């Protein structure tokens, strides 16, 4: 274990996987010579050379598709689509092509590839650079979606993603870029699909992930009268139903907290599933906390109000626990 920053953990994962497996290649805008727009790919070019580490033009559709073709032909490309918002120009390649290759060929081809994007929520990047679009990706059969909220998870999930035989979308939090924490050297892998229970509790289950997870942690530290169980989903699709449902069966209450717009967000899937599966155990209505129905605003005071901040989370925790079932 060494103390490592979030971005360095990502960097380590790339270094380790490229060293381990010759078929891993890295392509993207500014990833080679500049070492990545935010340094995540630093040193890869020097270590693995210009064939395996390539700067690309600003052509997200072509580079995602090229990664796909290379994956079908035996490589394990890791392609960087710088900000998650930019996947909008490569959506066909992600959704219609990469995610469906295995299915459409009945397993004759597979697409062992990773797409990495930053989500910049909380960094004042404005309406076209701070979207939380994980709900779109999760709605696509065949595409796995992971998002580590800690340096250790960012690293371990990326490694798992690279080793997965299908396409995995890896989201990374720019707001956590310089967060330091203990990270294992070498072979720590978080299996895709496994959530982490960050905090055990009895009264309420809070499910969160990605950019919201650190704010949930802060909030939980502020709450003293409620025993909160916090689950960091880590994998958004396929999500860890067992862990979440098991927890809600115990606590009887659910609050989902995410940075995406509430409406039609990932929280809806989790809340709806829990509402169905834990119907008899629920002691209070399932609740969701997320961004209001608006694009991500730029100004700090607006973005603060937009994203679920710790005070709002504690308020919602209290509110959820205080709701009592009326006669039905």
């Amino acid at each position: 274990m060494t103390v490592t920053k979030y971005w360095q953990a990502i960097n380590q994962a790339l270094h380790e996987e490229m060293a381990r497996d010759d078929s891993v290649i890295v392509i993207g805008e500014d990833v080679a010579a500049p070492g990545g727009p935010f340094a995540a790919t630093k040193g890869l070019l020097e270590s693995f050379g210009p064939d395996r580490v390539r700067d690309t033009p600003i052509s997200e559709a072509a580079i995602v598709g090229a990664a796909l073709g290379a994956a079908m032909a035996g490589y394990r490309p890791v392609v960087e689509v710088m900000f998650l918002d930019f996947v909008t120009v490569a959506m066909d390649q992600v959704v219609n092509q990469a995610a469906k290759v295995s299915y459409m060929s009945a397993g004759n081809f597979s697409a062992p590839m990773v797409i990495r994007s930053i989500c910049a929520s909380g960094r004042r990047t404005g309406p076209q650079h701070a979207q939380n679009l994980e709900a779109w990706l999760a709605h696509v059969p065949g595409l796995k979606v992971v998002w580590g909220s800690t340096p250790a998870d960012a690293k371990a999930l990326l490694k798992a993603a690279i080793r997965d035989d299908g396409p995995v979308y890896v989201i990374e939090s720019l707001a956590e870029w310089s967060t330091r924490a203990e990270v294992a050297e070498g072979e720590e892998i978080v299996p895709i699909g496994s959530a982490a229970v960050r905090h055990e509790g009895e009264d309420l289950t809070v499910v969160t992930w990605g950019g919201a997870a650190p704010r949930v942690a802060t909030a939980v530290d502020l709450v003293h009268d409620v025993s909160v169980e916090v689950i960091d989903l880590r994998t958004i699709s396929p999500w860890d139903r067992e862990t979440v449902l098991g927890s809600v069966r115990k606590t009887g209450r659910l609050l989902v907290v995410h940075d995406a717009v509430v409406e039609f967000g990932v929280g809806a899937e989790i809340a709806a599933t829990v509402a169905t599966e834990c119907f008899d155990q629920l002691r209070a209505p399932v609740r969701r906390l997320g961004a209001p129905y608006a694009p991500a605003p730029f100004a700090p005071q607006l973005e603060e109000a937009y994203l679920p901040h710790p005070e709002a989370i504690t308020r919602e925790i209290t509110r959820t626990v205080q709701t009592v079932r009326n006669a039905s």
Partner: protein
Amino acid sequence: MTTTRDARTSIGRDLALDLYQTMMTIRRFETIAGELFAAGRLPGFIHLSIGQEAVAAGVCAALEDTDYITTTHRGHGHCIAKGGRVTEMMGELYGREGGYALGRSGSMHIADNAVGILGANAIVGGGIPMAVGGALAAQLAGHRQVSVSFFGDGAVAEGVAHECLNLATLWKLPIVFVCEHNGYAEMTPVSTHLANPDVTQLAAAYGMNATAVDGNDVAAVLAVSREAVARARNGGGPSFVQARTDRWRGHFEGDPQRYRPREEVQAMTDRDPIAAWRSVLGAEHGVSDDELDSMDDRITAELTSAVEKAEAMPLSDPAGLTRFVYPEASR
């Protein structure tokens, strides 16, 4: 433009017959598919490449099994020419368990790892980056494989096509872009969808070799393809081939084609690539009409058998509906 005479001289009798066989197999496959569709036996939509067979045959004759191709909604011909198995193709058109994709995908998504068919594609332009990726893999592996992307004139208006031309040129990838230029994007003529209908000029601007060829002349297509493929194999980077050809049928089967006069289609049949090649076979290789007729019969028999086999295949099993959403085995 490579002249037909130059092109022909490098083609021996066997290859000449192979080209004929490929073209005729495509023609018959699609004619039968069209009939089956009209008879209500095939579900969905199908798009036929009748009239365009020389492009598929000519280009793929320049390729090895290990080379890659991607193609389009109008891709039966390319798949057949690249070595796709007609029975599994037919089974897929029927939506049967014995089809290439166990009936999951239909006519627009034939893929076969064994012969380098990375896939047909129902998204216009969607397959081009995949071919670039095949070329990237080939370059990385040092296998001297070549990747070919077939697409139509309509696809040239999709931005991703240009991204690929730029990227392939930058990276000197072993790829040949083959624009099958039939003058239509669905019901819209090229004059309405491309500002410059000579796509070689767009491609050449990236700095790659770009050649226009008569796409109804299989020898000419083969000649330019060989040149382009050799360039790619030798590290010379990408090439662009524009093959002007004719779509005899509607955009899809059932298209009433109100947007063009009957005479236009009539004139196309006068440029029939197969009839033309039949004459060459006779005149230059001394192949008799009888020989060709019996080849035609063998092809018809093979395809009739493919249809019979497809009809005998079990329906795709709904129990397997969610199989292969994720890959089942690791590589």
